[in-house]
């Protein structure tokens, strides 16, 4: 699952995130609301895990590591 999530993030943002899994994606301008929506849609179609948009909180999605942890907790 980690591998799939990392490739989704890379595909959507076009940035290499594997070097630093604690990189703040919003602070760095790599991710915005639209990128987030694309990631949510991909997680839904590739992993079959649905994240309600109203349950989305930036704090839990800030870094690749946090995204992995949050999605795992929802699986």
């Amino acid at each position, binding site marked *: 699952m980690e591998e799939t999530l990392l490739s989704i993030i890379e595909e959507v943002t076009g940035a290499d995130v594997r070097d630093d899994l604690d990189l703040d994606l919003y602070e760095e*301008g790599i991710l915005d609301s*639209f990128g987030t929506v694309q990631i949510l849609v991909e997680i839904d179609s590739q992993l079959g895990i649905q994240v309600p*948009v*109203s349950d989305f909180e930036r704090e839990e999605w800030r870094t690749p590591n946090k995204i992995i942890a949050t999605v795992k907790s929802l699986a």
Partner: protein
Amino acid sequence: MIDQIPSLIPYANPIYFAYVLIALIPLIAYMLWKEKRLPWYQSIVTLVFLYISFGGSSWKQGVALILYVVWQTVLVALYQKYRQKHNQSGVFYASIILAILPLFLTKLFPVFDFHISFIGFLGISYLTFKSVQVIIEFRDGVLKTYKIWDYIRFLLFFPTISSGPIDRFRRFQKELHNAPLRSDYADLLKLGVHRIFIGFLYKFIIGYYLGTLALPHLEKAALDGGLLSWQMLLYMYGYSLFLFFDFAGYSLFAVGVSNLMGYKTPMNFNKPFASWNIKEFWNRWHISLSTWFRDYVYMRLMFLLVKKKLFKSRVVASNIGYFGLFLLMGFWHGFTWFYILYGVFHATAICVNDWWLRLKKKHKNWPSNKWTHALAVVVTFHVVCASFLIFSGILDKLFFN
């Protein structure tokens, strides 16, 4: 007779703060002493302050408020009951439309010079944001059950009733049922008092100087000077600064008084004029409103568009989302041409901003240092000020009067 008793708009007058302080002293003492909330006392204080603001000469607004709360409470309760067993999109959209209807009518009637006294009241749009939010969270299944009294307390939380900040129901509910520890509460009290005093500086000193003393003169000079004059430029700066200090001051009062009651209502402003682009500006200006639109309008709309693949180009989809969001925000401010133009202006600015960010990504060798940052802040400030000039309505006076 009742029309002669004056009513007090929240935070508009220093005497309001004296009343707040007197009313809150028992609550503060009890919470520090017992580390527990005092729900019945808080309810009484709420009723007293609603009466102070919506009773007396404003009694028609008071009646409108009561009717409104009954309407929303019944609507949300019915939808929650329905949602436990079913989940049809049609019912969801119908509920949203019914929740927005009172606000829609109060915005529409003035266009036709038509006034009904029992439908509008100060703060109706902020209550609507709260109610719509709860319906959406039931729809998404994030919220499954709730206590009706918690919901009513959320709607009627008096420190934020007239102009926000717009809180989130789940966040508020958590605090409603958990009192802060003594040491945390003591810190929160300090912070609250500090915020209220910064608010005095912003709203009653700087805001008063700009709004009441300077702006009328600046406006007259700008109208004489015309659109492309330095007087108009001066008015633009004056109005923009006034808008910030007046509203940020009010927001500090609302958050500060919430803090005194042991609630961490979210902040509304974070140095907006230090933003280096328009996207950053919306992360820092009227934050509770822009994040509400981001979470409950823009992201939901985008999710639908991206999932159904309605647009081949992601750029087009994203830009359509921006126009949808900012047009809605424009109409929300009022059904007047300059508010709608203000929305179009910001949508365009943010699309250009996105285009620029994509261009910059491709050209990694472009200079990026403190000078380019300073230039970006200055440019952003002027784009924002230009949008506030549209928002101020002075163009309407200039062109049509």
